């Protein structure tokens, strides 16, 4: 009788994973779009630094030759494109980032949707459900960046000038908000920002933003909430 030895070699595991990434969608005319991009990065320098960005070409529909030029123009602005999204396209050059298909608009809810109910049940038994809000009981110092795509962020303390909070859900600051706050960053337009005292450099919900300069002077130094109404960011006093 022969005994078969167990296979020792580990096989390589390929796993599919999904990640949330920012998508840039250039529009024609390109010159104007780049200008408004510059305006935005001027207000938020370093926003794209080190972050994966997907270039969505479905609005612009450029010629194959123009894509390379656009990618290098974005690279000059410190924006690293790691994939390109373009329907029905196109032989991309080998030195361009690869084509990405099957993208879904991310919302905070979509992050939790499990397509296979059985898999969802298994996942549940494996690990206890993570609470999807993040509470921080210390002041957020200048230079710190809190990134929490899974839900709300609650800060018991102040948020300093030169720091940023990025949340998939709403942001609550029980102190003075002096930094920048991005609520609903994964596409949740119902998210809101609340703070006890508004000295914010920038408030944004679902990509719609307002800089300190564009806020009504009467909302400075007061308790406010920021929310989206008809595609515009409103900053209203909290009473």
């Amino acid at each position: 009788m022969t005994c078969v030895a167990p296979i020792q070699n580990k096989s390589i595991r390929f796993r599919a994973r999904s990640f949330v990434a920012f998508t840039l969608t250039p529009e024609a005319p390109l010159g104007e779009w780049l200008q408004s991009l510059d305006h935005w990065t001027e207000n938020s320098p370093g926003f794209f630094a080190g972050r994966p960005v997907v270039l969505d070409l479905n609005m612009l529909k450029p010629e194959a030759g123009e894509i390379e030029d656009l990618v290098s123009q974005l690279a000059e602005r410190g924006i690293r494109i790691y994939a390109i999204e373009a329907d029905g396209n196109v032989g991309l050059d080998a030195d361009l980032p690869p084509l990405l298909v099957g993208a879904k608009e991310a919302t905070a809810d979509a992050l939790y949707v499990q397509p296979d109910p059985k898999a969802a049940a298994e996942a549940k038994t494996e690990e206890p459900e993570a609470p999807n809000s993040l509470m921080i009981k210390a002041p957020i110092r200048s230079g710190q960046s809190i990134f929490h795509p899974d839900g709300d962020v609650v800060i018991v303390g102040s948020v300093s000038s030169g720091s940023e909070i990025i949340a998939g859900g709403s942001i609550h600051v029980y102190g003075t908000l002096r930094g920048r706050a991005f609520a609903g960053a994964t596409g949740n337009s119902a998210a809101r920002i609340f703070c006890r005292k508004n000295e914010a450099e920038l408030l944004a919900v679902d990509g719609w933003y307002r800089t300190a300069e564009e806020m009504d002077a009467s909302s400075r130094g007061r308790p406010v909430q920021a929310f989206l109404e008809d595609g515009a960011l409103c900053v209203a006093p909290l009473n």
Partner: protein
Amino acid sequence: MGKVVVVTSGKGGVGKTTSTAALGAAVAKTGKRVALVDFDVGLRNLDLIMGAERRVVFDIVNVIQGTAKLSQALIRDKRLDTLFLLPASQTRDKDALTEEGVADVIDKLRSVFDYVFCDSPAGIERGAQLAMRFADEAVIVTNPEVSSVRDSDRIIGLLDSRTMKAEQGESIAKHVLVTRYDAARAARGEMLSIDDVLEILSTPLLGIIPESQDVLRASNVGAPVTLSENTNPAARAYIDAARRLEGEDLPVVLPFERRGLLDRLLGRRAA
């Protein structure tokens, strides 16, 4: 075991080295054994402020590299025999400091001295991070200006994340020392108020040092102001701050502008 206190700020020129010398001398005068360590390798100044620049033979880099013993590199102050200085090297840069080397030097100093004051270089890079790495307490030197306060806030973030104590889950005791406080400018609303500074930094106050020509003069002649002119307001503020650092509960008094009747009549401003 002695206490290791880092004097830091983020921004340059706010008075870290001057404050290290003044606080160290004030504590040493009470009889405690005090070592001042200059971490500003390549841009050393603490030896000048202490008036010991002509007595430097070995420095912290020599000690770390093993070419000198710690006892050879320590310089005893001529005025106070409880006060010692470990100078930085002027000819090297911050890469000459290794974490293990600094840990070793700080450990040895901690076992011999009651207080070890680490004078941090400006910035948030390697030199500043090594200066704070093994500290038990931190004095954050801040001018009442927005740029200085924001940089101090950044440094407090690093103190809460990059120090040995923070990594072990303990918290490092932090104190804000407001320097170059100009009572006249504060009265005209040209400076941040102390309340604003403390609100932004949410850290307890160690003291307020008034802007003073005497501090600058003392630095230039190589004598900490707490030793040479201990009656002037800035020196008294430093001495009080040192007592608070040792745990005494003293109220902080806001420096005010002293103007006599004659000054007022002639429109003169007191320094």
